[in-house]
């Protein structure tokens, strides 16, 4: 029955309380209470009476009430000594606790008393009331739900009714496409390519502001077209820009006067009230062009080249081939400029190369972000897989050197330009030759599979009407590279041509002359003429400007006629025919057989122009057919 002991720890606050602060700032402290003083003070604070009455509540026994009375009496009495009050209260508490314990014991032991549940009367008309209550509950729940639905509907309607360009909706749309962040009260956005791998120094931050003008001032019709969101783009990114790439043929030295900003008409500044998306896209494009140009300019300055690259203002000039130069110009119009700069001069803007430039820079961006994943993951990051394996696979010096080599943007674009120039030249030359020489047909088959640095063409020379004679086909295969053209002829001879147009033209002319000889040979076989001799490099006759003339000698089936054909790339075709030597006496005793008559005779040139026929092959066939005597 002993009461459990409770540990009460009493501890004074360590710091002194401030009683007052004098005007000169001095603080007057209250001296701390002594231990016993403190205890008394704390004990005073305990209101035992209140605690009892509140905690136990009403269902207390008789004894408690007495205790209450006692306690109240004790409280009224003047205390004899400081602890009297406390003692009384504790005593009362003890009494009460003892009584409570006794009651509990009695109830628990069940020897003297039994406790029973007090039976309460069940409420009548249960179901009706319950139904009512439920109904009421459901009704109120339905009310809440309906009210909520109504509110949602309303807000939805409001959303619908609201103009499309409401600021926050616009902001939401903006946020879906652009990077935004809130700094203080302003909303800043970033339109740079940094997150896509760019390392350009110039930032591309813009500010988003609410357009208050339209909301208040202008009419509804205007408001529907204009956005309530406005973007402020840094001045250096305003306007529109593009990189103009031009391949020019210049006579003699470099032409520096062309470094004038010329803006094509189509690409003018956008109106100041354009939609923010347009503005941002334009600004981003400006930033991209600037990065591209600054990269190229930096490379142009750093690169050592045989003919130095020239960077003048917003133009980079580099020599591609002698007399052909590539100029890359950064065109940036801020829109505030007057229209003077619109130069009437026609600019041959090369869209393909401009596109390649954009592609190259984007590739650089891509590479800076996309590193090959190291396997195992603890291996070094940021190097290629090949480099990572270089050590353990004992890769040789040369391969390692190759790995370190990388081409700059400028070098790459110059290569592409060279190829483009070379391809264009080849195309033009082939077309020009084909239209100039109608006799043998010249077909060029361009391969559809080509790259920006290599393309192929097969040139086939045939004679009209004789295409079925396969041996007469004079085909060659041209592989157009960066600096030169590799040619493989029909007889698998490999020739490397430089960038000069003349070389291709000469080659084709030489091939034409070869084609004529091939036609002669094939026709001879067809008409059973004899093929006596052939020389691909005739040492006699008129000198050719280049290459050599070929010749062939054919004899009719019964050996009385001979045709000699000489075909040169510049001297053209000459057909000579030998007829019987009439001057030799047929009855000469020394001639035992008729065939010996054929030994002599003179060649006479045939005037091809006077022979019918569309081309040389027809004409030759006609000649051969007409001179053949029946056996």
């Amino acid at each position, binding site marked *: 029955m002993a009461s459990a002991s409770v540990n009460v720890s009493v501890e004074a606050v360590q710091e002194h309380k401030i009683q007052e602060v004098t005007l000169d700032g001095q603080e007057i402290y209250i001296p701390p209470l002594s231990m016993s003083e403190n205890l008394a003070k704390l004990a005073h604070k305990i209101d035992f009476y209140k605690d009892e009455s509140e905690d136990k509540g009403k269902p207390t026994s008789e004894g408690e009430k007495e205790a209450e009375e006692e306690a109240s009496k004790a409280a009224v009495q003047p205390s004899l000594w400081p602890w009297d009050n406390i003692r009384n209260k504790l005593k009362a508490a003890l009494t009460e606790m003892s009584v409570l314990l006794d009651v509990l014991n009695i109830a628990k032991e069940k020897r003297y008393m039994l406790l029973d549940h007090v039976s309460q009367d069940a409420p009548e008309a249960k179901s009706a009331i319950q139904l009512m209550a439920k109904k009421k509950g459901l009704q109120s729940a339905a009310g809440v739900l309906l009210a909520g639905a109504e509110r949602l509907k309303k807000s939805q309607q409001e959303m619908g009714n609201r103009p499309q360009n409401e600021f926050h909706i616009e902001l939401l749309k903006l946020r879906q496409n652009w990077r935004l962040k809130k700094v203080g009260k302003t909303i800043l956005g970033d339109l740079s390519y940094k997150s896509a791998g760019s390392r350009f120094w110039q930032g591309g931050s813009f500010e988003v502001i609410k357009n208050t003008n339209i909301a208040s001032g202008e009419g509804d019709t205007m408001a529907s077209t204009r956005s309530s969101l406005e973007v402020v783009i840094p001045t250096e990114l305003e306007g529109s820009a593009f990189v103009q790439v031009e391949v020019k043929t210049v006579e003699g030295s470099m032409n520096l006067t062309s470094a004038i900003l010329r803006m094509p008409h189509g690409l003018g500044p956008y109106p100041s009230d354009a939609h923010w998306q347009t503005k941002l896209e334009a600004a981003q494009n400006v930033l991209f062009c600037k990065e591209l140009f600054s990269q190229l300019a930096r490379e142009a300055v750093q690169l050592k080249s045989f003919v130095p690259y020239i960077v003048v203002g917003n133009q980079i000039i580099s020599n591609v081939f002698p007399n052909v130069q590539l100029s890359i110009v950064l065109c940036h119009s801020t829109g505030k400029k007057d229209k003077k700069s619109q130069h009437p001069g026609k600019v041959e803007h090369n869209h393909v190369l401009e596109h390649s430039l954009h592609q190259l820079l984007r590739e650089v961006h891509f590479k800076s972000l996309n590193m090959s994943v190291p396997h195992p993951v603890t291996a070094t990051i940021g190097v290629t897989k090949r480099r990572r394996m*270089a*050590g*353990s*696979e*004992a*890769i*040789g*010096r040369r391969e*390692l050197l190759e790995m370190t080599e990388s081409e700059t943007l400028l070098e790459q674009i110059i290569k592409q330009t060279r190829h483009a120039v070379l391809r264009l030249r080849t195309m033009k030359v082939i077309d020009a030759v084909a239209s100039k020489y109608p006799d043998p047909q010249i077909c060029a088959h361009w391969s559809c599979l080509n790259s920006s640095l290599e393309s192929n063409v097969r040139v086939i020379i045939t004679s009209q009407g004789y295409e079925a004679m396969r041996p007469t086909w004079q085909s060659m295969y041209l592989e157009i590279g960066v600096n030169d053209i590799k040619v493989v002829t029909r007889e698998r001879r490999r020739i490397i041509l430089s960038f000069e147009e003349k070389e291709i033209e000469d080659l084709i002319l030489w091939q034409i002359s070869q084609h004529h000889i091939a036609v002669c040979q094939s026709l001879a076989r067809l008409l059973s003429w004899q093929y006596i001799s052939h020389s691909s490099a005739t040492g006699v006759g008129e000198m050719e400007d280049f290459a050599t003339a070929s010749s062939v000698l054919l004899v009719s089936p019964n050996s009385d006629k001979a045709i000699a054909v000489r075909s040169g790339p510049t001297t053209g075709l000459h057909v000579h025919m030998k007829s019987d030597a009439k001057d030799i006496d047929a009855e000469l005793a020394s001639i035992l057989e008729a065939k010996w008559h054929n030994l002599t005779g003179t060649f006479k040139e045939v005037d091809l122009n006077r022979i019918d026929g569309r081309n040389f092959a027809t004409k030759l066939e006609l000649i051969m057919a007409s001179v053949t005597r029946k056996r």
Partner: protein
Amino acid sequence: MGTIDVYPYPVPEEKSGQQVVDTIQKQLELLGAHKSGNFCVDCESYQSNIQTATQQRLLHLFHNSEQPATCFSVLDSGICLVSDLLFEVLVLKLTEKKTGKECYYQQRKGFKVESKGQRYELGDFIVKVGSVILASNFRGILIEVEYCPCVIPSECWNLMKEFMQSFMGNMAENPPAHIKSKMDTIYTPEDTIQQYLEHFNNFRKATSASVPATPNR
């Protein structure tokens, strides 16, 4: 990377090493070879200091200028680890002495060997004439001949033999011992190192037997 054979070249008593090297180089130049830089193969050795291990280990670290990103480590049991240059740093970690602690491997003093000299190219062949230097003393000459287009030694041995005899005489009568055992396998840079290790060991032995400047082959 093709097939490589390494042979020691004798230095006669009356001639200095440099003279012999010059003679070989002159012969190569007469054959039409042209210089293509220098080369160097070096080796450092470490000795194990592990009490628990049953036997002492020797670890040789090789560098070959032909594979500049690689460090070859060969244990005396013959196993060769091909690795990045940084493996050397790992080995140095093992040789590191912390305060009051002992290291696991110790560098062997005066055991650094290297073979360096001119590198020649002649068609598909690469010839390297190296002077072997042990602890900054000239010890002999090693000639390395590489035939680039072929990686299986047996396929090109006769060709190489013929080529080598044109300037080395009958030094190259048989394939090197290391190659002989693996004539039909694919040649790797590791095999070059094994050949060098064999020759370097011979030079070291010769030195310790105090027979100076005569390769024992």
